């Protein structure tokens, strides 16, 4: 198993194949969704999405609830399987692997290899209630990366300090506020040094007065630069500040995408205009 | 090994004994429902002795085996002049034992009734009897009906214990048949299958009822 620090570069023929698919950018994308669809029974939540994220790029996904933006992140985190289409991470297929030239469903080992490049922060934190804060953050370095406990705890401590929680190491999640919980969750994902981090509405479950502290931490991380981010959010000002690019989702499709200033000051679709006026009205 | 002719021959006799088993189950359950309610209400009594007394009684009965309780009722009570037939001793034993379990079920039902209902009843000047019969029980009982159903099934499966106090129910019948011929395999297998085909569909029904109620409550 690779250490969390190591970048796995795979420069195989898959990368060459990739050039045909990516027409937009010269550099190999961090993530590439290719004709991704997802259905639950009759309900189609994603409709043939083509979408790329460049290394280090900060992309914000906005759109009404139920528009499919969360599903897009969950497919990448391998929490759900796409109905059709492919996803590539760092040039490698995520849900499939090639065995003797044939494309087959990825096994657990392959999924684990790719997952190591991805981190995720959930709307409802999903901290481990039976572990202390320190253990929450140190768990993956110890059990996934196989780092000795002392070293893992050292890493956990330094990252918890970074998110402003240096006095809570031995507390349990139930003793923290929502904002603190979410900061622990961010530290927990960050400690594995993913190449791309997914934020699934990280402030939607928080009391309004706690939103700021979490957004502040995310902004700080964004400014460090090297990690790509997919931010699913309803916080328009935040999206404007942090994102290099914003995509507007509606009914399982990307309706509009572009630089934040273009999208927010010059929305073309009426759906986006509606959404933005509702947020301004608040 | 298994002998079909013999199994078919003894089946009617075993099946007929099911009548005793079913009687003991239903009468015992009715008794348990009634006693359980009494225990549940007296546990909430404002008189401390009554509340603690019934709590202690519940703990004691729940923490001792039904079999020993049956022996006690059947063999000890005659010493003080109370003679009971095996069937009535069995029914009383089952009824008392399960009343302690049912009192807990009622309790959970009662505690699920919002505090405001008690206060509203008080504000309307209901008598204690009216509070229970008109307000609390009608609301607290329906949600626990599936749990009561499960206890009915559990009790049905406990009735073979009554064979130990000489009641000739289904298991005892099988045992007598078996001891005549020294062939226990068919007799006991038939008993097991009878229990299974009666209790399994019932518990599936209870599970369905439970799911449907959970849905409608939401």
């Amino acid at each position, binding site marked *: 198993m690779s250490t969390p620090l190591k970048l796995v570069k795979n420069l195989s023929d898959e990368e060459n194949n990739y050039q045909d698919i990516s027409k937009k950018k010269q550099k190999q994308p961090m993530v590439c969704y290719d004709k991704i669809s997802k259905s639950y029974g009759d309900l189609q939540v994603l409709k043939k999405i083509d979408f790329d994220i460049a290394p280090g790029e900060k992309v914000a996904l906005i759109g009404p609830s139920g528009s499919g933006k969360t599903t897009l992140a969950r497919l990448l*985190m*391998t*929490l759900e399987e796409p109905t059709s289409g492919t996803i590539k991470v760092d040039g490698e297929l995520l849900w499939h692997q090639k065995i003797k030239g044939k494309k087959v469903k990825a096994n*657990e080992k392959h999924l*684990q290899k790719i*997952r190591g490049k*991805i*981190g*995720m922060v*959930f709307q409802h934190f*999903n*901290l*481990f*209630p*039976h572990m202390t804060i320190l253990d929450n953050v140190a*768990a*993956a370095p110890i*059990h*996934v990366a196989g780092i000795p406990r002392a070293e893992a705890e050292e890493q956990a401590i330094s990252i918890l300090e970074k998110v402003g929680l240096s006095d809570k190491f031995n507390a*349990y999640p*139930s003793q923290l506020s929502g904002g603190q919980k979410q900061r622990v969750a961010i530290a*927990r*994902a960050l400690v*594995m040094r993913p190449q791309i981090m997914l934020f699934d509405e990280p402030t939607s479950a928080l009391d309004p007065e706690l939103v700021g502290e979490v957004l502040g931490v995310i902004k700080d991380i964004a400014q460090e630069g090297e990690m790509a981010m997919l931010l699913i959010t309803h916080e328009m000002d935040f999206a404007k500040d942090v994102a290099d690019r914003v995509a507007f989702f509606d009914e399982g499709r990307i309706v509009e995408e572009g630089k934040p200033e273009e999208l927010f000051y010059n929305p073309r679709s009426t759906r986006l205009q509606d959404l933005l006026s509702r947020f301004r009205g608040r | *090994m*298994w002998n079909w002719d013999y199994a078919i021959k003894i089946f009617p006799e075993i099946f007929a004994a099911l009548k005793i088993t079913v009687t003991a189950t239903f009468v015992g359950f009715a008794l348990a429902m009634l006693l359980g309610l009494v225990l549940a209400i007296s546990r909430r009594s404002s008189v401390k002795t009554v509340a603690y007394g019934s709590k202690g009684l519940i*703990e*004691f009965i*729940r*923490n*001792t*085996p*039904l*079999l*020993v309780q049956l*022996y*006690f009722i059947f*063999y*000890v009570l005659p*010493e003080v002049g109370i003679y009971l037939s095996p069937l009535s001793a069995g029914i009383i034993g089952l009824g008392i034992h399960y009343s302690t379990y049912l009192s807990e079920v009622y309790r959970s039902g009662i505690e699920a009734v919002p505090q405001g209902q008690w206060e509203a009843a008080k504000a309307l000047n209901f008598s204690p009897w009216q509070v229970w019969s008109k307000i609390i029980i009608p609301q607290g009982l329906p949600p626990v009906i599936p749990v009561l159903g499960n206890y009915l099934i559990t009790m049905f*499966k406990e009735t*073979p*214990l009554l*064979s*130990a106090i000489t009641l000739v129910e289904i*298991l005892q019948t099988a*045992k007598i048949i078996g001891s005549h011929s020294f*062939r*226990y*395999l068919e*007799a*006991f*297998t038939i*008993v*097991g299958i009878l*229990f*299974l085909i009666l*209790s*399994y569909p019932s*518990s599936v029904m209870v599970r369905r009822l439970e799911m449907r109620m959970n849905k409608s409550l939401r």
Partner: protein
Amino acid sequence: MTILYLLPTLLQGLKITLIITFLAMLLAFVLAFLAGFGRLSKFRVVRFLTAFYVEVFRGTSLLVQLFWIYFALPLIGISLPPLAAGVLTLGLNYGAYGSEVVRSAILAVPKGQTEAGIALNFSPWRRLRHIILPQAFVMMLPGFGNLQIELLKGTSLVSLITLADLTYQATILNASTMETTMIYSLLLVIYFLIAWPLTRGIRWVENRLSVGRY
């Protein structure tokens, strides 16, 4: 002082009762986990077989199972001594009930916990070991606690297959001394004195384990 005369024999029986309780508990515990996981297996055959085991043992009566294993099994060539038959029956029976405790506790761990485990790239085994089981185990305790009391009480049934447990010694004493009231009262009290501290002890462990965490 009839009590002094009765007590040694009863305590001898108590020893057997405790041995059976302990052995059957071990067996039931192992079976509960095996069958609990079996019912959640991704293989249909495993799910079906464990469901069959669980439903048969939950759907028939403990005493019927005991008689079947002790009296009927020899006819197909498997003769077990009373102790083995008692332990096996109690273990199989309460293992079946226990599997439901295990299964429902595992299912009760919120889905987000598994998802967080996946997001942190835990392997399926480590997710179970470090995330799901520690949380599920706390939820299993009340269920296991109740089953332990039921199992202890259930051991009294082995007296009916001539195993010299507490209840058996009491019935023998009753036949020889006719001190019926004293014997059966003592019997109830002894069972209570074993079961009640057990109930309390389990509740204490539950409280200890959930302190501060939830």
